[in-house]
């Protein structure tokens, strides 16, 4: 019935704007509304949103490159957080760092942790792809929609990785006490420095990925593999290697996301699942498979979630991301930046 009402792209945008206006009016009518609360909602929303955006970026990257949705991506995020935390604990015992850099040791340790999470999760992702996903592609289907086995494998991998992490680090939530200095004052608001740091590093990673994909030779190869594996083969690209690289980069970005979240919240074995679901919502909102769309979708979901839980009801915090996803799918099924369907050669 609904597909008979052809509303077109412009109609979609108008209806969506009406929804946004109703939502804004609802928020403004809330008794908690003030400039101060709006400022903090925006900063918290952006900092949470960039994390959703980073994980969504990985999901979108894997989707464009491998044509499957990786449902174990949240676990790479969680293990990345643990990798960063482990490095943090190791470096925290080294007294020479305190002696050599008395002013900046907190920052140095934290940057090393981020780097560790990035590299170790990249290698771990390549390992997982080579050992668990590659044999499935050889059985048939390959990295296509027909390769449903990989999606099921993603769910299984998620359960296995959670339980392995449970065995190694036990289920107690662990603090990540990175010492990054005192809260910063921005526009009359005192913000923990980790919030700013999350946004800055997150945007930096996204910009780095954009540069890598658009300006380097390897990035050109990745875009080619994402478009068509056959044609990439014919121009001499080592396609299996590039598929591993795509998977590795996506996992490395998730690992950075995990380490960024650590100091603000806590590191716990079960943190991956809800992040995966919300990042999935962010990817859908931004347009599935579109990389800038993933970041914008992440910000949208983050701000929407924070604003709703502040102005509407805080007891249903985890609901709002999916509410937004459903509204976007109803009105604008392609998301903000998505194209109708991925073109296949």
């Amino acid at each position, binding site marked *: 019935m609904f597909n008979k009402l052809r509303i077109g792209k412009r109609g979609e945008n108008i209806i969506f704007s009406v929804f946004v206006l109703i939502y804004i009016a609802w928020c403004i009518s809330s008794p908690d509304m003030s400039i101060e609360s709006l400022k903090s909602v925006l900063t918290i929303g952006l900092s949470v949103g960039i994390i959703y955006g980073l994980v969504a970026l990985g999901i979108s990257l894997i989707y464009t490159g491998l044509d499957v949705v990786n449902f174990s991506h949240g676990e790479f995020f969680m293990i990345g957080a643990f990798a960063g935390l482990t490095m943090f604990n190791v470096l925290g015992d080294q007294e020479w760092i305190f002696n050599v850099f008395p002013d900046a040791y907190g920052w140095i340790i934290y940057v090393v942790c981020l780097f560790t999470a990035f590299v170790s999760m990249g290698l771990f992702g390549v390992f997982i792809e080579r050992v668990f996903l590659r044999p499935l592609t050889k059985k*048939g289907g390959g990295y296509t929609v027909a390769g449903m086995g990989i999606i099921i494998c993603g769910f299984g991998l998620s359960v296995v990785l959670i339980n392995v992490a449970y065995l190694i680090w036990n289920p107690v939530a662990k603090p990540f006490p990175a010492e990054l200095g005192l809260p910063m004052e921005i526009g009359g608001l005192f913000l923990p420095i980790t919030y700013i740091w999350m946004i800055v590093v997150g945007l930096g990673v996204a910009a780095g990925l954009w540069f890598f994909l658009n300006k380097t*030779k390897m990035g*050109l*190869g990745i*875009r*080619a593999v994402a*478009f*068509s594996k*056959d*044609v990439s*083969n*014919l*121009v*001499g*690209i*080592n*396609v*299996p290697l590039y598929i591993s690289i795509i998977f590795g980069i996506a996992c490395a970005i998730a690992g950075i996301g995990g380490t960024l979240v650590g100091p603000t919240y806590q590191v716990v074995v079960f943190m991956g699942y809800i992040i995966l679901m919300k990042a999935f919502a962010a990817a859908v909102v931004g347009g599935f498979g579109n990389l800038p769309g993933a970041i914008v979708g992440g910000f949208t979901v983050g701000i929407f979630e924070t604003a709703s839980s502040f102005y509407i009801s805080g007891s249903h915090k985890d609901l709002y991301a999916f509410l937004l996803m459903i509204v976007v799918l109803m009105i604008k099924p392609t998301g903000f930046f998505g194209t109708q369907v991925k*073109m296949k*050669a």
Partner: protein
Amino acid sequence: MLKIDQLVSGYGTVQILNGANMKVENQSIVALLGGNGTGKSTILKATSGLIRAWKGSIEFDGEQIHNLPPHEIVSRGLVQVTQGKDVFPAMSVTENLRLGGFILKTKKQLNDNLEKVFNYFPRLNERKDQLAATLSGGELQMLCIGRGLMSNPKMIMLDEPSAALAPQIVLDIFKNINRIRKDGLTVLIVEQNVRMALLLADYGYVIKDGVINVEGDSKKLMYDESVKESYLGGTKANVQ
């Protein structure tokens, strides 16, 4: 240069080629003709490594290549040029060509080859910053051939370069293929346009039901009754 011996291959469990034999001499143009579904493209795909050879062997430049992955075959100088629709539409013409030279080591080689391709196809030079999606059918085919030439191949295999193009453009493209051969490359051309292909080629093969049915000098094949027959599916149309 290229020697295909008793090649058996197919997709999944469906066998398409039933022991095809072919030979392409150095610096010649060889035409591979046949109707729909006879296995022309399958021979190309097996040769460039996109599908495995089940039985038989493929030899290129004195080396067995049927067990190599596709990118290794490209780096040995054997490149398949697909039909014009297989370009990367969201990339510019120059980016598409750069991808063709993906296996080149230095920037200088890449720029030299770009120059060479623009020399063959000046139209691409005019449109080098445009997105490939905005090109016309003939320009897309030129882009595809240009992309194949970017990696300094010894031999290129063209998959229906005249498909769905105006006769004027087909003529232009075929002239360029002849020029490419004069510059020292070997060309294998798979065609539906039998007459044009035979005018261009030195030698021709006609494939039917996965085996080579007729072969011979292209001038001779042009007047051969059995070519027409096998091209039309092997049964004489009974028109009264």
